[in-house]
């Protein structure tokens, strides 16, 4: 039995508080993601030390005022490397999501508007790619083309196409079946104009949510690939690569592994929370579902 109480205690408060009370996870995720973006932007222009600058005699130093997170086995500043790694991780993840979106969204729209053989073929293809776990697809592509930032980005991007195509298709179907689209068709609007004027605006929110959720997946995949030595090759600073390096020094300096691990976990959590929160704000009926 559900009881509509009609009480809105939050309405009296300010807009920020209202947002916090309506979707705490969106706010938390937004703050984390904002912080990551800020670090990445700063890192493009400035880091405390050069991320590749080796200083002999300063190896494996503990955290101090000069080196906030200490130094690694070559005396490189961990904090600077982490900042520079943020930049690369974000570029790679965003690149992958961009690839997935640029192919997946049009494919999903096409599958939704052409219900016949074309749509069926697209969705079968999506299912086929979907049956490959993203990381396995990425490893296969790396095996064929060799390890590099570009290969890793493209591989993860390609493997993520189906999730975009599916979300876009299922969001576009009800819009295409709606009366106002039927009316627009009756007026003789071209299919492309209908897509641009009616379908895209309605599908956009779902795509934005999917971007955020997918970013958490791609960040994870980028880190995993560079950890496995299949991403950006060293000495460039990557979170996964730093983690892999640090593993050789677990007995001397376990903190070395904690920093990149924390960075990966926090970004995944942030993008995930933002996506979940946005979905809740968009569609309250989905609240509580996984």
């Amino acid at each position, binding site marked *: 039995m559900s009881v509509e109480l009609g009480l809105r205690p939050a309405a009296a408060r300010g807009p920020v508080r209202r947002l916090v009370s309506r979707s705490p996870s969106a706010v938390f995720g937004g703050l984390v993601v904002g912080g990551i973006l800020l670090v990445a932007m700063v890192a493009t222009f400035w880091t405390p030390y050069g991320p590749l600058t080796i200083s002999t005699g300063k190896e494996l130093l503990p955290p101090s005022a000069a080196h906030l997170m200490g130094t690694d086995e070559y005396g490189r500043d961990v904090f600077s490397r982490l900042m520079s790694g943020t930049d690369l991780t974000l570029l790679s993840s965003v690149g992958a999501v961009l690839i997935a979106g640029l192919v997946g969204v049009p494919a999903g729209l096409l599958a939704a508007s052409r219900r016949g053989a074309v749509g069926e073929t697209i969705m079968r293809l999506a299912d086929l790619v979907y*049956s490959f776990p993203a*990381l*396995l697809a990425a490893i296969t592509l790396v*095996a*064929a083309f060799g390890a590099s930032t570009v290969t890793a980005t493209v591989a993860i991007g390609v493997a993520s196409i189906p999730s975009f195509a599916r979300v876009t298709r299922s969001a576009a179907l009800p819009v295409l079946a709606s009366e106002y689209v039927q009316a627009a068709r009756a007026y003789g609007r071209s299919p492309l104009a209908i897509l641009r004027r009616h379908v895209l605006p309605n599908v956009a929110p779902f795509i934005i949510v999917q971007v955020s959720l997918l970013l958490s997946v791609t960040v994870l995949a980028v880190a995993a690939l560079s950890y496995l030595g299949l991403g950006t090759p060293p000495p460039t600073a990557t979170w996964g690569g730093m983690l892999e390096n640090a593993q050789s020094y677990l007995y001397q300096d376990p903190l070395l592994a904690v920093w990149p*691990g924390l960075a990966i976990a926090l970004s995944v959590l942030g993008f995930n929370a933002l996506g979940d929160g946005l979905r809740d704000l968009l569609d309250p009926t989905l609240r509580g579902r996984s």
Partner: protein
Amino acid sequence: MATVLTLFGASVLVFAVLNILPGSPAQVILGTQATPASVRELTIKLGLNQPLPLQYLHWIGGLLSLHLGNSYISGQPIAPELGAALAVTGPLVALGLLFGLAIAVPTGILSALRHRRASGTWLAAATQVGIAIPNFVLGILLIIVVAVDWRLLPASGFIPWSQSVGGALRSLVLPAISLGLVEGAILSRYVRTAILGVMQADYLRTARAKGLPARRALVRHGVRNASVPVLTVLGLELSGLIIGAVVIEAVFTLPGVGSLLLSSVANRDLITVQDIVMLVATVVVVTNLLVDMLYRVVDPRLEVGG
């Protein structure tokens, strides 16, 4: 039928991707100092001079008759090596699944039963954090605490089953925990949603009206009904576990399928890569098929047609 088609498509895809580049595997095997004549000889010996479709048929025919071929690098047959690796990866995935279920079922049920109380909310929040910790990060953290600090369990390596079953199990404990925790956290949310659904179901009220106490009614009707939605995600979770094992084996330097795959990628031993990728894809697809069949067994409404 759909499964066979998917697998066929997957095999074409894998073969195409790995054979699309011009470079000659024979050149890779023999190294840069090899004479053009010896490269040619090996190319013919490996059958690499034949047109690609024929090579594909040769490969897929071999797979179907369980002849996996010989490694480009060592020249040894791939099958025994893969078999030895499976003896590590299989138990790792099984233990990971067990551990994941051992976490997901109790926490999911508890956070559903206490969904109105703070403890349930905290439990749900904890699973959210658990989902965000990548398995390889967790693995390294576990190594730092359990293996380095407490010196309780080995940090890496594997003691073969033939040498000591206990030793082998001990070397799989930390990897299995790292592997299972994330999947367990994801699964826990599905269990919670499923149990909440059962708790609000009318048939549960009917059961209580019969005189079954609340907990007993939930056990009697909840287990089966909640397992239906949970089963659907279990297939996905299993593929997550299998692919996660590749990474976890690297963290703990276990000589499993993942390690074999990664070293083959590093050596550009493409035929082995091709075989392993196909094996993993087959396992994932077949697992999903099995889960689908199990689903039909549990839910009688899907008996006919479906």
